[in-house]
């Protein structure tokens, strides 16, 4: 059922939820599952702190099993207009479970279940943190991220999750936060550091890192990856986004801009050049010329 807007405010609200040509930042919902341990709750709160203000935290217990039945998650996503989700739960079979996932058109696209082996919370690390909403630098290390298909998709998902809003320019001094992911033997180590820019001899500063923020040791458990065609559909960009190429314009080595004109074939006989009235042949002169030419001709004969 399509909702009709009765006030201008509600109309603006509905318009903000409509699909757009270029999309803004994705919001994420952080959901607590049926049973969750202290670790999981703290982990969820930390990720929420990282992802503020584009995140909603559902603190109450939700008896949802994402891998069996994703309709509840889809309902939440539709209600809160969030396309990324993080679901935390804890049971005997899967202790300290976190499921990172994303949606396309309010249906689950990818889901990765990661178990927390070791977790250091924000509270335990007593250093000053960077302001909320800074776009973090993301670093992925490990050849598994390149070779293994699941790791590749996980890398894409983590990029999507943690990259901030899409900006056209960034303040160089404001690159304070870095998230570092290392993949080794089926485990992912996530660390978060504060970047200190120190003076070096030249323009580019020397980096020193300071421990900050949550650090996780994940172990890969189940996953649900989208089928290839669904993945392709999700990437399809609308036609208005790509800039139109201007044809027949080129730049030469000196940087001058050259254009190309395409003309029709011209009949050079009927070309209209400039008329010079003085050079026009008059009738009297013409007969004199022919007479002179005729007179000349027999003379040479003789």
């Amino acid at each position: 059922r399509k909702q009709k807007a009765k006030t201008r405010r509600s109309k603006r609200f509905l318009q903000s939820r409509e699909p757009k040509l270029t999309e803004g930042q994705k919001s994420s919902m952080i959901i607590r599952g049926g049973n969750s341990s202290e670790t999981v709750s703290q982990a969820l709160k930390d990720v929420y702190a990282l992802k503020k203000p584009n995140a909603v935290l559902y603190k109450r217990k939700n008896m949802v099993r994402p891998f069996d039945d994703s309709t509840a998650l889809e309902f939440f996503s539709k209600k809160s207009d969030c396309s990324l989700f993080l679901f935390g739960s804890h049971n005997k079979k899967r202790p300290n479970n976190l499921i990172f996932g994303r949606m396309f058109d309010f249906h689950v696209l990818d889901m990765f279940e990661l178990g927390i082996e070791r977790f250091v919370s924000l509270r335990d690390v007593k250093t000053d943190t960077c302001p909320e909403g800074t776009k973090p630098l993301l670093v992925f290390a490990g050849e598994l991220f390149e070779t293994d298909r699941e790791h590749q998709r996980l890398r894409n998902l983590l990029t999507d999750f943690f990259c901030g809003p899409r900006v056209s320019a960034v303040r160089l001094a404001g690159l304070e936060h870095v998230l570092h992911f290392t993949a080794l033997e089926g485990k992912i180590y996530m660390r978060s550091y504060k970047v200190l820019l120190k003076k070096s001899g030249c323009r580019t500063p020397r980096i020193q890192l300071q421990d900050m923020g949550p650090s996780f040791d994940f172990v890969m458990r189940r996953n649900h990856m989208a089928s290839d065609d669904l993945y392709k559909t999700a990437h399809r960009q609308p036609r208005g986004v790509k800039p139109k190429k201007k044809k027949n314009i080129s730049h030469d080595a000196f940087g001058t801009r050259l254009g190309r004109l395409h003309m029709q074939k011209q009949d050079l006989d009927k070309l209209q050049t400039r008329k010079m009235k003085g050079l026009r042949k008059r009738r009297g002169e013409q007969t004199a010329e022919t007479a002179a030419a005729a007179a000349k001709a027999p003379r040479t004969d003789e």
Partner: protein
Amino acid sequence: MASCSIEDVLAKAERDEAEKLKGITVNKELDLEFDPGNLLAFDKNRIDTREFKDNKREDFIRSLARDNTQLLINEMWKLPTERVEEIIVAKLPDPSTPLPREKPAPKPKPPTKWEQFAKLKGIQKKKKTNLVWDEVHKEWRRRWGYKRAKDDTKEWLIEVPENADPSEHQFAKRNKAKKERVAKNEYNRLKNIARAQKIKVPGMGLAPTPRQPKAELAQAVNVAKISTASVGKFQDNLPKEKTPKNTGKKRKFQPLIGDFSSEKQKQLDLLKVMDSKKPRLDITKAVNKQMREEDRESAQKSKKGFGKKGRRGNMSGKGKGKAGGKGKAPKGKGRKPHMKQGKR
């Protein structure tokens, strides 16, 4: 000798440069892949598992992170910068990692009727100011609406044009013209709604409905009967049909000055009625009539609540159409036996 010193100078310069860059150079086997648009770096190098032991793990990760971040920062510093309000800002290129969209791409909406028309006629959208200067009142007034700038119905002086009838009321003429415009607009609006919702509206008469109630059918029959050239005068009745008596003028007025005796008689009758003790108004009759009206209205509402959701405005030609529910069983005191549909 000279050449030696030149070489020395160059070598020294190189060493100096290297010294400078020592702080920020990082040696890696494979170069990292960068995506400055997303502030992303990807290190494909193999990680030595030996160094990844328990006690040294954090330090190893930290140093690895430091190296990678240094390379990423180097890359960021290579981007073109500009100064925005005294802050040095680097312009980011477009992100190169393809990330899936949140929602599918929006479909281009088909142009509306107005947009098609405007395109056809070549009409451009002109930006209009909110307020217009009113010369008469010497102030800024809105372009349309309450207390607008040029309101010709509110003028206090109208010049009678040369070719106009002198006894014509110019102010009334303007008011009437305005009323006609309003009515025309309203009519067009309702027609648009009917067209949009695909409801058939008759030009004149009754709208076709799937289930027609008794009253509407009777009305339709009557309308059909008088739709002849001689307004139904020579139409024969059906076997059990009765000619309706309510044709013609509803009220007849006596001329002002006419029959004096009849007027005198009328006045005396009126005084007699006023003197008499019996009330003119039969209360029971009136109450019954009122109750019946109310019952009929509620029956119509409950019946038509489901059917007539889409209808808005006056759709029927005459506003009489009421559900022909049969009179309910008598309830309450003072109800006399049913009365048929009397004069309205």
